[in-house]
């Protein structure tokens, strides 16, 4: 019977054909051990693919990982998280400060004086020996004092939807050039000029409008157009000579200015626009010097220049127009966002982009002309493997060089003799936040007691498999900003009960806490899809129940959770986490002006002292002073307990043991060293010097 035979033969042939392909496939052995190419290749795996390989456009971690290798910023951070020069050889920061001459104010001891006299007054006080210490400090920083003559200008502003022409005839202005940035300058100058000198400046007198807009609006407008005082911090970058892009085009100040302009161009929709909004002007003084002038004091500004620099010659107006025409698109609306550049990036980093296969891999080759010397690896491969178990299997097989260990595997893999392991703290923490608008959580003692009732150490031990550390405040734990003097809230349910009793909560007959006949009852919520948070939810509920608090819990889908509960402040308590940057700027999360709907201070933390410190930290350019303010702020937040700070995660990564650092010592001899992490736990810091050896090296105990 032919049909019967066919029914048996066809599937057999198909299956046999599929199975025989096994004999053609190279084994892992062939790929890893027998292949010399493999030793000069570093392969890493990621769960997700990159989106746009353009540092000014992308906001995801996969893209930034590639960008950090292909592009280079003006500066970055060294082993101790201090800034170091990259494309910029060096930089200096100084300040230009301005204030308008207030001819109505009376100067203490002199009365009303002419602008010229202010100049001589300041100079005289500068050389005087009887100044208070803080004033003296400010005066000593002044390098130059100039008077800017009065000037007129016209501008169009919109007020309440109306276009208004304003004419400003500004009075003379005094310009001070300071050696360093000094946020207390005007505060101290008040000691000479009188305490109302700046605040009483009648700016509105110098502004006239074509339509009558009323006194209040006019004053507002004047404050914007003629601010009585102005701090203009300036950063001057001296660029490294001889640096070239991967296409051989030299890198100059034009590229820096272009990168800034590309970010600010509204057509490009750059998510980094808020970082550069405080920039007033970027000036090219010569091909290797760029001056960045800021509108106001904003100390996180320096850090933003670690952004990769784009090549101007490939993305300027002409280049984009040409590309648009070639691809048959409208040159008017064509922006960097549409450009092919984002899939074939060119920068001046240590690796050159070679190939990108969506959702499969991205391959980079080393850049032979890299200014610091080419990396040891010839190739960097970024594989996209969305499944963690598959990643792990590939790592064991040797086709991936590093693997991020999950908490439950740490105990097993950390001491595995086949691998070298590194671990450190991540830049984020998990917390329970209390809605301080609700009466229940207004009392500091109640919030503290709630924290004391939870055994965080046990959460770390059992939920995180020990892969976490306690945290007491909002700063990154491995930076100087974190105040290590603050002790975590102890686990003490009895103490918690005592605190609650002080606050008026007593246990009733059923054992529930009660105040004025009302039971202590609230709902704790978190988002779904995060098992750790769900576990903490149950633990907290149980811990609080034990001291007599009736807690309900709810787990919500992320977008509902954010839009309906967090944004609208419709919650009692919430379990969430924050990812942080190294910069200690806490404005968005902790300042009292950020407590409205859709803002990030959703717990409603308001504290005057904290507000002052947050602003001061933002405006302070001196590291030591910043650290001092941060420590104080940390103390206030730890005392107030708007959050119960729970823990910061620990990460662990394992690497093939054959990967070492290859370096050249003073005598020109090649030396191999073991990879050691920096103080902050970053083991990839010396990545450009890494190489894989054919067999596991034996290091003497000294290294």
């Amino acid at each position, binding site marked *: *019977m032919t*049909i*019967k035979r066919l*029914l048996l033969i066809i*599937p057999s042939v*198909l*299956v046999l*054909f*599929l199975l*025989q*392909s*096994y004999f*053609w*496939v*190279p*084994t*892992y052995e062939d*790929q890893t051990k027998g*292949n010399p*190419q493999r030793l000069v*290749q570093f*392969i890493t795996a990621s769960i*997700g693919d990159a*989106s*746009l390989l353009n540092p000014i456009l992308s*906001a995801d971690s996969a893209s930034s990982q590639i960008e950090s290798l292909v592009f280079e910023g003006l500066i970055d951070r060294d082993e101790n998280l201090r800034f170091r020069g990259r494309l910029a050889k060096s930089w200096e920061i100084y300040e230009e400060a301005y204030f308008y001459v207030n001819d109505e104010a009376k100067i203490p001891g002199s009365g009303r004086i002419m602008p010229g006299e202010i100049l001589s007054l300041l100079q005289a006080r500068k050389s005087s020996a009887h100044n208070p210490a803080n004033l003296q400090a400010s005066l000593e920083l002044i390098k130059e004092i100039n008077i800017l003559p009065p000037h007129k200008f016209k501008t169009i502003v919109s007020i309440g939807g109306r276009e208004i022409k304003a004419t400003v005839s500004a009075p003379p202005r005094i310009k001070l050039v300071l050696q360093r940035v000094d946020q207390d300058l005007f505060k101290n100058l008040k000691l000479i000029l009188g305490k109302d000198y700046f605040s009483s400046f009648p700016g509105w007198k110098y502004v006239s409008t074509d339509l009558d807009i009323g006194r209040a609006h006019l004053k507002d407008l004047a404050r914007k157009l003629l601010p009585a005082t102005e701090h203009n911090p300036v950063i001057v970058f001296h660029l490294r000579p001889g640096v070239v892009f991967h296409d051989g085009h030299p890198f100059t100040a034009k590229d820096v200015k272009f990168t800034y302009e590309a970010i600010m161009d509204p057509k490009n*929709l750059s*998510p*980094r*626009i*808020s*970082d550069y*909004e405080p920039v007033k002007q970027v000036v090219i003084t010569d091909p290797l010097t760029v001056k960045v002038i800021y509108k106001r004091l904003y100390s996180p500004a320096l850090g933003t220049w670690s952004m990769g620099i784009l090549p101007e010659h490939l993305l300027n107006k002409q280049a984009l127009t040409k590309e648009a025409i070639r691809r048959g698109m409208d040159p008017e609306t064509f922006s960097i*966002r*549409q450009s092919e550049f*984002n899939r074939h990036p060119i920068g001046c980093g240590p690796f050159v982009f070679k190939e990108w296969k*969506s*959702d*499969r*891999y991205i391959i980079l080759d080393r850049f032979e002309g890299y200014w610091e010397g080419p990396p040891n690896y010839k190739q960097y*491969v970024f*594989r*996209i493997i*969305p*499944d963690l*178990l*598959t990643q792990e*299997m*590939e790592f064991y*097989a040797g*086709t991936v060089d590093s693997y991020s260990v999950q908490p439950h595997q740490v105990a097993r893999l950390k001491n595995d003799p086949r691998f070298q392991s590194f671990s450190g703290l991540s830049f984020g923490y998990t917390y329970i936040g209390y809605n301080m608008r609700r009466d229940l959580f207004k009392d500091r003692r109640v919030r503290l007691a709630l924290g004391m009732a939870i055994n965080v150490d046990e959460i770390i031990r059992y939920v995180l498999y020990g892969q976490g550390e306690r945290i007491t405040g909002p700063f990154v734990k491995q930076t100087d900003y974190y105040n290590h003097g603050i002790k975590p809230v102890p686990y003490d349910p009895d103490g918690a009960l005592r605190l609650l009793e002080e606050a008026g909560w007593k246990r009733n007959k059923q054992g529930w806490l009660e105040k004025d006949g009302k039971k202590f009852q609230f709902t704790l919520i978190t988002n779904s899809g995060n098992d750790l948070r769900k576990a903490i939810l149950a633990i907290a509920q149980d811990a609080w129940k034990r001291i007599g608090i009736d807690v309900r819990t709810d787990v919500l889908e992320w*977008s*509902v959770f*954010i*839009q309906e509960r*967090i*944004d609208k402040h419709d919650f009692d308590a919430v379990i969430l986490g924050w990812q942080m940057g190294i910069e200690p700027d806490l404005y968005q*999360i902790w300042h009292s002006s950020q407590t409205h709907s*859709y803002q*990030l201070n959703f717990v409603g933390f308001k504290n005057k002292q904290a507000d002052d410190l947050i602003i001061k930290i933002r405006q302070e350019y001196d590291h030591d002073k910043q650290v001092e303010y941060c420590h104080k702020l940390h103390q206030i937040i730890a005392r107030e307990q708007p959050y119960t700070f729970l823990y910061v995660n620990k990460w662990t990564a394992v690497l093939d043991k054959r990967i070492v650092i290859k370096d050249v010592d003073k005598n020109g001899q090649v030396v191999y060293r073991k990879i050691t992490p920096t103080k902050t736990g970053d083991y990839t810091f010396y990545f450009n010097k890494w190489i894989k050896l054919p067999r596991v090296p034996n290091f003497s105990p000294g290294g």
Partner: protein
Amino acid sequence: MLSFIGRSIVQKTVTLFFVSIVSFLIIHLAPGKPSQVNPLNPKFTPELVERFRKAFHLDEPLYDQYLYFYRDLFTGKIVSWKDNRPVLQKIWERFLNSLPLFIVGTLLTWTLSFPLGIRSAIYRGGVYDRTVTFFSYLLISIPGFFFAYVLIIFVVTRFHVPVIGMETFGLGDASWPPMVMDRVWHLLLPSVLGATGGIAVLSRYVRSQMLEVERQEYIRTAVAKGLHPDQVHYKHALRNALLPFVTMFGLILPGLIGGSVIIESIFSWPGMGRMAYEAILARDYPVILTVNFVSAVLVLAGTFISDILYMVADPRIRL
């Protein structure tokens, strides 16, 4: 026949129109926002979010957004929000990746189910039938991801060969026969996994269809007149049992664009399913809606084809 085709096309166009409206509404009214306008990223200022909303037309009424979307879709200008690449081009790339998986999976399903099912039906109640039934139910009830992990660990630890991805990573410049065979090998596991469920279900179908036909009187007649059993089973019975499967052929079509998220993720296969899944997570509306639209078209085309096949296969049926 022609009038049927005409009527059918009109009906299906109307259905497609409603599908487009409903799917558009579901996706836009579902909670969640595109990641570009996610309000909980401190880097995104309200002005920037506003600008993104404008660029994506999210600030306009839904019916305008609907028109914008379908205008862009039909002029081929639709671009993904994630990486600004044309959606149709993205889908086409992924389609080509998913296609071999789909073809091999379907071949395995259809070629293996028939011999298994027919034999079960012929020797119903015997050891063979019971074994096949047992394994069918086992395969139906094992979760795909679990089975996949077991298979991967088994193959990798036993045979030390790579199984994930579309080809051995870093194979470099080998000559073409090993290249092709390498690709075939990488197809094997994911398509077997994709086919197991199908084989289990389809062979059950074949079995019950055969059983039903074998009870007919003309089969008894055939046996009574002394025909060879093979002749009876494979000629008289099988032909009549095949009829319902003809229609199932048309319904395979939508599978072309489906793709399995789980299998593709586990095997790092850059296919359609993964792209659609990631688009949903990022609320990349253009990609989600286009995939949705294309699969709606394929489903409708599939039912249309099966109607036609039915008519061709069985002249008694008039539509």
